[in-house]
């Protein structure tokens, strides 16, 4: 039982490049979340999903897109990376809204 996994662990991008971050969970959770963590800002919600095929905007959605084609996977896309998107990205999953959220190990992204 791996819990929540994220790939890649670390990535360097140039401004304007695109990439996709993958989150996978094996706990059969309905809800999945993408957060970014920046110094002095805590964790901020980017997008979330309440089930396969659904997505919704969080607190800081601009510049990101997401997809939830399969229940166990939640993808976060950056179409045109900007230096302001340099951050550590965490994925989380939970059984339902308000239930405990289980976090992945994070992806460190550096945009030059």
């Amino acid at each position, binding site marked *: 039982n791996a819990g*929540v996994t994220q790939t890649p662990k670390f990535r360097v991008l140039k401004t304007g490049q695109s990439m996709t971050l993958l989150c996978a969970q094996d706990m059969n959770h309905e809800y999945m979340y993408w957060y970014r963590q920046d110094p*002095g*800002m*805590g*964790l*901020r*919600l980017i997008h*979330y999903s309440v089930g396969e095929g659904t997505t919704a905007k*969080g607190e800081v959605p601009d510049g990101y897109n997401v997809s939830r084609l399969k229940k166990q996977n939640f993808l976060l896309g950056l179409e045109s990376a900007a230096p302001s998107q340099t951050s550590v990205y*965490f994925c*989380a999953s939970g059984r339902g*809204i*308000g239930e*405990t*959220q*289980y*976090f*992945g*190990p*994070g992806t460190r992204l550096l945009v030059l």
Partner: protein
Amino acid sequence: QKEVEQDPGPLSVPEGAIVSLNCTYSNSAFQYFMWYRQYSRKGPELLMYTYSSGNKEDGRFTAQVDKSSKYISLFIRDSQPSDSATYLCAMRNNAGGTSYGKLTFGQGTILTVHP
């Protein structure tokens, strides 16, 4: 003004000390309060979960909520070097609308317990 304020520290204490970590908040709709622990280069993990006002104890950890003052605390007794981590408070409300159930995090407090 942020909805949740948390002193980022860093906080350095000797082994065995009692540690007090705190958060204040402005949204009176928050009813559920959590503390997450995050080790370096790892994801946060849930440590304590409380509902409304009162205390909750789990081993060396005690979570305290004072809704009248909009203030929550986490106490760690007999602190150990293995407690060295970043501690994040998180809160959510139980109201309807787009904010239902979403967590709002504090900035996190970096704690170091030295032998």
